[in-house]
């Protein structure tokens, strides 16, 4: 079942074409990797999907909705949440509060209920604390709920960002270099975590430079170069694709 489709999306920054007519489809339940050399436009694609930057041309459709012109918080509510390449937690707030920020968009109580401390607001608060703790437990950070997010180890911060993204109850999570800065053991644990995310019927899209990791967790890999899709297929197909090898290793000079 088609979940996300990108149709000829384009973005230029000044004279630089960051994404040039990129098209792709993501089906429900897949784990899709987006790879490519530095500067290929991978993160820009993610930013275009999540609405952090505006499309110049093309369309993004997500489970029946056009995402064009929607602000990021609306897109989160529709069911796409993300993590950032450079971790973007709320570092001075607690681990729990960071996850609660993800719960926000699924909560109901507004200003009136809050200022008068109404019973339904208190009930919701209790429920959401439980949900947040479940998410922390899911990524293995439950015991650290009361620490300052900024004080966590790097790998833990990455996992906390994933917990925060999952707290928005997404249909699709977009992970921008989730294994970045992780050691081998942490990366291995991340592989398991992504398997578990898939088991929750959440589709995963990720950018990653760790090829062993990508080949291990992804069902399908998209390869970008200079803002365009150059190859697409299973990890095995991609590894053999001459265009991919060329993009990564360059062309041998012929005499």
């Amino acid at each position: 079942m088609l979940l996300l489709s990108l149709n000829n999306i384009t973005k230029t920054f000044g004279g630089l074409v960051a994404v040039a007519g990129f098209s792709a489809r993501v089906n429900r339940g897949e784990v899709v990797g987006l790879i490519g050399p530095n500067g290929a436009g991978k993160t820009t694609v993610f930013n275009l999907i999540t609405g952090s930057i505006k499309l110049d041309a093309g369309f993004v459709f997500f489970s029946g909705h056009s995402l064009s012109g929607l602000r990021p918080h609306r897109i989160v509510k529709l069911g796409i949440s993300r993590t950032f390449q450079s971790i973007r937690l709320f570092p001075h707030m607690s681990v729990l509060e960071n996850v609660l920020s993800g719960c926000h968009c699924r909560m109901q109580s507004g200003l009136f209920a809050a200022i008068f401390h109404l019973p339904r607001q208190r009930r919701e608060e209790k429920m959401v604390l439980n949900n947040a703790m479940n998410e922390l437990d899911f990524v293995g950070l439950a015991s650290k709920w009361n620490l300052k997010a900024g004080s966590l180890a790097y790998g833990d911060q990455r996992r906390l960002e994933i917990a925060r993204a999952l707290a928005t109850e997404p249909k699709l999570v977009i992970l921008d270099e989730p294994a970045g800065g992780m050691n081998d053991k942490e990366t291995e644990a991340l592989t398991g975590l992504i398997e578990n995310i898939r088991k929750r019927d959440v589709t995963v899209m990720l950018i990653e430079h760790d090829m062993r990791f990508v080949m291990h967790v992804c069902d399908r890999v998209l390869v970008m170069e200079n803002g365009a899709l150059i190859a697409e297929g299973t990890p095995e197909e991609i590894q053999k694709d001459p265009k991919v090898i060329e993009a990564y290793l360059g062309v041998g000079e012929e005499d």
Partner: protein
Amino acid sequence: MSFSFKGLLSDRVPLEEGGGKERILPLPLTIAGIAIFFSIPVIFKVTGLSSAMYWLEVLNTVGLYAILALSLNVILGHAGMFNMGHAAFFAVGAYVTAILNLTYGWSILSTLPVAGLAAGLFAAIVAGPIIHLRGDYLLIVTIGIVEIIRISLTNNIFGVTGGPNGLMGIARPTIFGFKIARPQHFFYLIWIVVAITVTLFYWLENSRFGRALKFIKEDPVAAEGIGINTTRYKLMAFVVGAIWAGFAGTLYASRMRTISPGSFNFEESVLLFTIVILGGSGSQKGVLLGSFLIIGLPELFRGFQNSRLLVFGAALVIMMIFRPQGLLPPKPQRYKLPPPWDKMGQNGNSSQAKVSLSKKDD
């Protein structure tokens, strides 16, 4: 600007050792303190202090500023928006009350909700187009707003504001037939409103709404990216703060009985801004302390009339250098986990304490 504040904050606040001892005072002492405070008029009367009325007026002024500063705290302290035009909303509330009372004969209390709503509506209209501005830019525009209000009032806008002389002969509030006229009456009225404000804003702070503001203050891009409608929440914070300033305007108009544009100038806004920043941006205790220090303390030093502002300015400069987070900065919020999680983290209730523990582990 705000980022440097935070950087200093995290560096300089000493980490607490051990957990669960965060209260400055135990609860019974706090209650006793509040009880003593509310019996001040009685104490004054019993002891027959000659300047009792004067000191009650000072406390009333402190209370009014506390309400205003607490309402600014929602905007400046929690949402992190540099609003230096708060006196404008205060002015709208005061003038709405005065006009409804003088021209249409409304009782003071019945003007209260209208004054609040008028100030809130005014805030929604003027803040809507500028809410996306950041830091200093917002600050400059809000200074413009307060000036526009002052000049409009002086120019007798719509012929109802009485021009530079303002409006005179505003009635006293009457509650269940009891006329509030004397300073000790106002003391109770004002400080009960302060207590209500503290309670409601405490609840507001510890809710989805309050958290959203904190996320926006800490990182607006991340907040938007995780599903918070940042524009809407910023605007709502502005409107809530303005509504409360409007309420304070009602109290002020009926207490002074005369209002004029001069009472709602830029300096008032700066004063309120200073109370929040100096006391501890985002902390209600800090804002209350700030109100006493900035409004009450100068009254103690009336003797230095001429050098008062100098001492004041110097104090602020020293504060900003050595304690930019304010005298009583906000504490991290504590959460009581529901079962089955309530067994967790019993070894340290304070996040800061646990931070220090984990640092030792490293």
